[in-house]
């Protein structure tokens, strides 16, 4: 089937599994690596293996961590009564950069999206409920993305956590509608955090 030597065909195939990489981009990447010197190829391969070996998920918030707990969960300075729920580790980075939040995080590892085969069970949802049920937390700020999947996830969380007697708020719009949190600039993000509201029925 493939007109390439098996080794290069295999590399193209692996690249094609990556998000946003089509057959043509995969070819381009594979040939770039083929042309580069052995040392840089080795560095890339080692970086890939290393990131899988050393970076784990924080056992408390499921953010990326190099130890048992991530830096934020391990910090003494954070407010342990407020929890901010986000979809991905990169959202933690975005909110941290805004400097408008000093509580802890909970990283769901995605949003509810039936079309992609993701329901609440595929997310860190049960873990969220257990965390909130264990006491300390007074308020949960839901900062999932302002798109359909993020909004639905926020609704789901509100319905799940309200009976536990905790305040559940949603970051206010001010975020570009339909956009991903990641792309919001820092000013809008901190304003959005200030203007958070309780999630409607």
């Amino acid at each position, binding site marked *: 089937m493939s007109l390439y030597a098996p080794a290069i065909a295999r590399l193209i195939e692996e690249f094609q599994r990556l998000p*946003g990489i*089509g057959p*043509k*981009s995969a070819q381009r990447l594979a040939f770039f690596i083929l042309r580069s010197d052995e040392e840089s190829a080795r560095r890339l391969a080692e970086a890939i293996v290393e990131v899988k070996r050393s970076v784990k998920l924080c056992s408390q918030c499921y953010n990326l961590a190099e130890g048992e707990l991530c830096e934020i969960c391990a910090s003494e300075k954070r407010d342990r009564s407020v929890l901010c729920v986000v979809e991905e580790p990169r959202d933690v980075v975005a909110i941290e950069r805004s400097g408008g939040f000093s509580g802890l995080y909970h990283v769901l590892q995605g949003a*509810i*999206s*039936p*079309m992609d085969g993701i*329901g*609440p069970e595929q997310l860190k949802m049960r873990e969220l409920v257990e965390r909130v049920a264990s006491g300390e937390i007074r308020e949960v700020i839901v900062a999932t993305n302002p*798109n*359909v*999947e993020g*909004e*639905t996830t926020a*609704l*789901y969380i509100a*319905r799940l956590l309200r009976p536990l007697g905790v305040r559940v708020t949603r970051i206010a719009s001010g975020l570009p*509608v*339909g956009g991903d949190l990641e792309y919001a600039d820092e000013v809008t993000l901190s304003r959005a955090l200030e203007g958070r509201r309780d999630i409607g029925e």
Partner: protein
Amino acid sequence: MSFLIDRITLENFRNHRSLEVGPLGGTTVVLGPNGAGKTNVLEAIDLVVSGRSFRNARLEDIVTWGEHRACVTMRGLRDSTEVVIQERFDVDGDRRLSVDGLERKRRSEALHGAHTVVFRPDDLELVKGPADARRDALDALGSRLSEVYAHTRREYHKVVRHRNVLLREWKASSADLEVWTLQAIVLGARLLVHRRRLVARLFSNIRESHSRLSDGQELTVEYHDRCGLGITDPAVELTVEEAREALASEFAARSEDERRRATTVVGPHRDDIVLLLDGREARRFASQGQQRSIALAWRIGEVGTIEDVSGERPILLLDDVMSELDESRRNALQTCMSEAAQTILTTTDLSHVRATRGDAVVVELG
């Protein structure tokens, strides 16, 4: 403000590896045999100005086979200043719009609300076709005119698709389904209100253009919703709260039905817009000629609606429609053209367009 296209350059766009068309006039006739790629030129303009292709094509189909990237460049005048609008389309779905070399994210902002209206032989489907032909045409117009409409429609359809997966494949628990139902109600209500308002507005224009095309028959419209509302007159103003209540009770009433059919049966994605000619459904009872008049009146009505809403005269793109029309309909279309910002039309035979504006520029392809 208006935008006048003077020159179009296509690179790797469908069958055109490299094509330059221009200078264009107020009216431009693109002449050529079948297969010369005349429609592709119209499609390129529509794709850049409106953001979507009237053929609903995927980007990978637009790029010439074997190439990575297609490029459309339009040079023209905006408020009598020269402007270069360019868009690149990559096979992998990436597209970039730039104005005078600066990349722009928001099309409507970048193009200062320039619009197109496309006339095609398939427009007959608006009258003869199933409900989705009319719904799609309405929603496409609404999306062109308003970012909010476009966004609401996109998000609503995503919710319906998610919900259908839950119903069909997951046999979802009601707790899992409930949040999606809530979203369908909130977004569906918004879409319903927006769409009914657009129907009312568009139809006052369609009725007017139709009266000039027919011999005194009366065209009316009814909005048949599947949202539990039951108000067929689109001119009746509806609040979002009322729409939400109607949808909520309809969802509750139809929940067993929807489980059985494993799909979302309630909501504006199933509504129909029914056209009546002298009180009888045009889809079933009107003659072919009458249907053609209604379809033409619909598109001319879009031109008027765009002018009403945006204050801008749209660019008309006529894809081989003249040969289908008789004398009186051709005249109506020509009146519409004379009021448009610019018209670009395709034909295989110049005799079909003899009577168009005297200053028409003829460009030959193939």
